């Protein structure tokens, strides 16, 4: 690695690692920062995005005019004030949600300021300095240690270590090199060493960081299909209540209750009835959902993709690196007849001391931890001549000279060891080969350990190397099954090996000897049966499958093609995160459904407050509906309006954090959420309205 550090050509303040835990409660500073936004959002065009809140805005204007017509009416002004507060609380919720994203966007934006690019001229002979914003797709730029990469692209020449903490929050540098699956670089990240040539793949303003800023700020947010459907339902409920309240005026006049059911009071009733709770929090829920994803370092190109994640019913996971650790580990020592396990373990340990590969390390670990052999290092063996692993012999080992006799120990793949034994005058290791075959049949990799000493050359036994399943995977697949999601393991292994790993990991199905075409076919087949498919991938050959899948999560370490094809990018490049993404998608929908149910259930109590208040004067029998025993008509109406406004504030943290989600079947989830938000929504306002009424009666 070269260490020279030329003067930096751009400024790249190392971005502070963004908070990863979803701190739900907005701090005082966040709140204060959001207040101006809440007022700015009063613009009718902004308000019209939510039909429910637009009606509240119109209602607030109307009551203001009505109150102004009768300026001495303190009740009228009080109702008016609380209606305006209802609108502002809703806007505040949205502004707070956006504000949290904006803080992240600020730190990102700093990384892209004033980057100067060193563009190669067409003949690649010379460099010219141009602003990063002037680059076009296909330009070649040079980046050396200390340079900020001016735009998204692929490395076409060289290898470098890159600090990507600006986008991933991870301080350890990563290697980027031309060709292969680690060629993609992101604009705004900084080269720490060496020199690379990058071909720009994104226009300025459309780079990864730009997209990320747009998403976290909520600027690029479009309503998702479920959000649209819910908005339609809320709008039609609003129309129903509008009808109920507008027609109540002639009904009241007919009943002689026109003096109580004034337009001002009816406007207050309308605002109480329409689903303001969910109407006010709907967009905050959506923004917060994206935010939760970003906090887990996943970037989705659209809210639609997040929503689709909740609907996924088939999950394709690569075996290596996702389900298993990917490197094979020593699992057991299997000696041939006449050799003890201890002898084999000791020989294996000696032969592995000079083997720096992960497999070699795992043999030592098994010998020491599994078989109680003392740990040794290279100096502890006198007269030893170490033979490190080499790719040509595919063997490692040691020759120990002890009093004139040489004891040679070798460890390696079965074929190489057999050749070595033959070369040293030994016999064909029939039994050891049989053991090796058995290990292979179980999906493991056999290594043989042989010794050549005064008794001749012979194979002592087999080390069973196994691709181990990561801890906790079985439980996660079990959780997924409960959520109704089928996992399919994708592997290049033969079906025999694949079956063993699949059974051990507890996946529902596997695809062995998988080619990219097989993967595509599998996705298409699942989709034809009506299932939504999610997968993770990083290579260029994953791109078609990522594009075909309903949720395609590209690894940040992957190629530009893969990132372009997927609809999410995981900055941590952790394929198991698919599971979390699914949970976030579900949580988003549940939060919306739960708050809608809560909002509707609230109306029951409001009727019990307002109907006696309106009509008990003319129809004394209706006072029997005043089961909360509210102090008087005006306090009752005001209490309902105030409760309605305050409940929005009270639920902002829930909207930002999302409803608690535990993986469970649909029935269990429904039962729980109905009990909490349906029954809760029924009971809470009775208590809340009564409490507010009591306070009002105390002070008025």
């Amino acid at each position, binding site marked *: 690695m070269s260490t020279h550090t030329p003067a930096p050509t751009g400024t790249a303040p190392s971005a502070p690692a963004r908070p990863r835990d979803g701190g739900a409660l907005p701090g005082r500073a966040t709140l204060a920062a959001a207040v101006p936004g809440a007022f700015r959002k009063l613009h009718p065009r902004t308000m019209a995005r939510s039909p429910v809140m637009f009606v509240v805005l119109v209602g607030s204007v109307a009551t203001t005019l009505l109150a102004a017509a009768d300026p001495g009416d303190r009740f009228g002004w009080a109702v008016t004030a609380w209606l305006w507060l209802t609108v502002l609380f809703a806007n505040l919720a949205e502004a707070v949600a956006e504000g949290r994203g904006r803080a992240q966007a600020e730190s990102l934006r700093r990384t892209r300021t004033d980057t100067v690019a060193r563009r190669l001229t067409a003949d690649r002979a010379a460099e010219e300095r141009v602003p990063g914003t002037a680059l076009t797709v296909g330009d070649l730029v040079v980046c050396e240690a200390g340079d900020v990469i001016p735009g998204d692209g692929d490395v076409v020449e060289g290898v470098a270590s890159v600090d990507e903490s600006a986008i991933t929050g991870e301080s350890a540098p990563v290697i980027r090199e031309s060709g292969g699956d680690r060629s993609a670089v992101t604009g705004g990240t900084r080269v720490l060493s060496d020199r690379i040539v990058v071909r720009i793949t994104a226009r300025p303003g459309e780079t990864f960081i730009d997209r990320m800023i747009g998403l976290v700020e909520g600027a690029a947010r479009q309503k998702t299909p*479920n959000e649209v459907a819910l908005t339609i339902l809320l709008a039609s409920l609003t129309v*129903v209540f509008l009808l109920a309240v*507008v027609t109540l005026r002639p*009904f009241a006049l007919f*009943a002689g209750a026109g003096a109580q059911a004034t337009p001002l009071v009816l406007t207050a009733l309308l605002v109480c009835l329409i689903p303001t709770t969910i109407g006010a929090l709907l967009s905050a829920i959506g923004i917060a959902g994206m935010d939760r994803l970003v906090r887990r370092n996943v970037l989705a190109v659209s809210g639609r993709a997040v929503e689709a994640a909740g609907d996924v019913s088939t999950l394709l996971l690569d075996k290596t690196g996702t389900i298993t650790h990917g490197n094979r580990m020593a699992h057991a020592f299997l000696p041939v007849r006449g050799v003890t396990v201890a002898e084999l373990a000791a020989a294996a340990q000696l032969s592995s001391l000079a083997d720096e590969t992960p497999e070699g390390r795992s043999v030592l670990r098994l010998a020491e931890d599994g078989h109680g052999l003392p740990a040794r290092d290279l100096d502890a063996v006198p007269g030893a001549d170490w033979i490190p692993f080499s790719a040509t012999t595919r063997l490692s080992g040691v020759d120990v000279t002890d009093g004139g006799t040489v004891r040679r120990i070798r460890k390696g793949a079965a074929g190489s060891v057999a050749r070595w034994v033959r070369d040293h005058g030994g016999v064909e290791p029939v039994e050891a080969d049989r053991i090796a075959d058995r290990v292979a049949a179980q999906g493991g990799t056999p290594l043989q350990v042989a010794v050549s000493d005064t008794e001749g050359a012979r194979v002592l036994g087999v080390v069973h190397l196994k691709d181990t399943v990561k801890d906790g995977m079985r439980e996660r697949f079990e959780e997924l099954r409960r959520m109704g999601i089928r996992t399919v393991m994708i592997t290049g292994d033969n079906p025999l090996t694949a079956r063993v790993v699949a059974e051990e990991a507890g996946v529902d199905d596997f695809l062995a000897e998988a080619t990219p075409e097989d993967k595509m076919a599998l996705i298409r087949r699942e989709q034809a049966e*009506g299932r939504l498919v999610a997968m993770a991938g990083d290579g260029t050959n994953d791109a078609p499958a990522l594009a075909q899948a309903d949720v395609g999560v590209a690894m940040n370490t992957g190629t530009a093609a893969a990132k372009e094809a997927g609809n999410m990018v995981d900055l941590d490049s952790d394929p198991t995160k698919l599971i979390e993404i699914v949970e976030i998608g579900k949580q988003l929908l549940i939060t919306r459904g739960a708050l809608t149910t809560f909002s509707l259930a609230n109306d029951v109590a409001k*009727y019990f407050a307002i109907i006696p208040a309106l009509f008990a004067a003319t129809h004394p029998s209706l006072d029997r509906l005043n089961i909360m025993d509210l102090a008087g008509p005006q306090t009752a109406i005001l209490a309902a309006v105030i409760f309605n406004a305050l409940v929005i504030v009270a639920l902002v943290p829930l909207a930002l954090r999302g409803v608690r989600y535990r993986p469970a079947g649909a029935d269990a989830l429904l*039962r729980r959420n109905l009990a909490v938000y349906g029954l809760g929504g029924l009971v809470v306002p009775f208590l809340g309205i009564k409490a507010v009424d009591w306070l009002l009666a105390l002070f008025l």
Partner: protein
Amino acid sequence: MNAQLAGVLQLTALLGALALAHRPLGDHIADVHTSRRHLRVERLVYRAVGVRPDAEVGWTGYLRGVLAFSLVGIALLYLLQRLQDVLPGSLGFATIPPDQAFNTAVSFVTNTNWQSYSGEQTMGHLVQTGGLAVQHFLSAAVGMAVAVALVRGFARTSTGALGNFWVDLVRGTVRVLLPLAACAALVLVACGVIQNLSGIHHVGQFLGGTQQWNGGAVASQEAVKLLGTNGGGYFNANSAHPFENPTPFSNLFEIFLILLLPVALTRTFGRMVGSTRQGYAVLGAMGVLWVAFAGLMLLTEHHGAGPAPELAGGAMEGKETRFGVSGSALFAVATTGTSTGAVNAFHSSFTGLGGGITMVMMQLGEIAPGGVGTGLYGMLITAVIAVFLAGLMVGRTPEYLGKRLGPREIKLAACALLVTPALVLLGTAAAVALPTPPDAMLNGGAHGFSEILYAYTSAAQNNGSAFAGLSADTPWYNTTLGLAMLLGRLLPIVFALALAGSLAAQRRRPATAGTLRTGTPLFTGLLTATPLVISGLTFVPALALGPLAEGLAA
């Protein structure tokens, strides 16, 4: 035997009979609408009308059929009434005035059977039997056809075709309604309901003076009036008239006929979508609502407050002694819960809360169990909304029977559910706000308000029963109620068929452990609560000023 026990026994017998009958009948209707075979008589009809029976159409084609058939039906019925004086079989009655003829034509074609006239003093044999009774069959068959089309929307995948309206209409009439009505008419005749074509008899009364008795094909009209959830009686007194409903047994049998087809159609739904559990979940919600309100009704009517009810052992004002409180209460809940609108008692004379129950049964959306076909499609549309809310709460894009409920489906379902509340509330508001209409009221105050609210509820929900007390034969009521009936019938059909079209075009998504299960008691509970909450929130303020104010005063 005390009267309350009699009520409970009648209710039990009724539920038992329905439990036995709905299954074979529901299966039969499913077979009728999936069979490929045409009967000879059906082929004759197709040839006469010029329909190719094996050609299926999309939802717009299906809707064109429904609309054309309904509007032509209205025009024909209008002409029959307007030309009554020159046509044979008039019994000497004059022509019907235009506003009343419009109202009556719309009323019978929309399966409402609101009657602003007295049958025996206005309509001759031709209009009664050739016009009104024919629509008794056809309007019910149209409702059934639309329901079957919506069920096909759920059952079919990736197709534009919803079936053939003309085939569904003819089969529903020929293979379901006609044979059932014939059997029912025979039972009614056996009970003592009249069936003849004789004229008007003037009969001397015991204390002097004469009484006028009409003959007529009453049993045949009565059978389909109830089976088709029509409700338009031969006589003004409807099922309170001894020629229409002579005995307590005939009364119970009539309640059975009212509930039979709406209940059986849930079985048809289950069969056609390939899971009878789904049908039972829907039936469960209908049943819980109906039985709960029937129980409440028995309670309020048996314990009516005031000196008269206490002496009579129940609120007997306006009820026939031969049916008693229980027979009248069950009939009232059945007729208002099914968009039938036949009455065997004076709903206006029920206790305040009892009158409220009859209104709530209608305001639920005529889905407990609702009219023939209309009840099923109404409940399925309600289910779409319930599934949407519940589906969100389990964290998936909501799906009902494997079909996604996206923006388009929700838009259509919400519009369908908006229509009738809008008609009821706006109609009532206009009637109380404008100076002329209230003149027709018998009562003022809360009861007068109930009369008007009931009239518009009954019309918009296509029920047809009246709270009485309101003289609705004025140009204002004939016209506005006529429009309410027409829009209350056709607009939901438009939305239901559009919904069917967009569902049928979808692929089916397989159910997983993460999918909301809709064949469970939990879902039945949700489906029971949803219409209660939605219609409760819509109508409580209006109900408060009418029946609630009255009922709570007691």
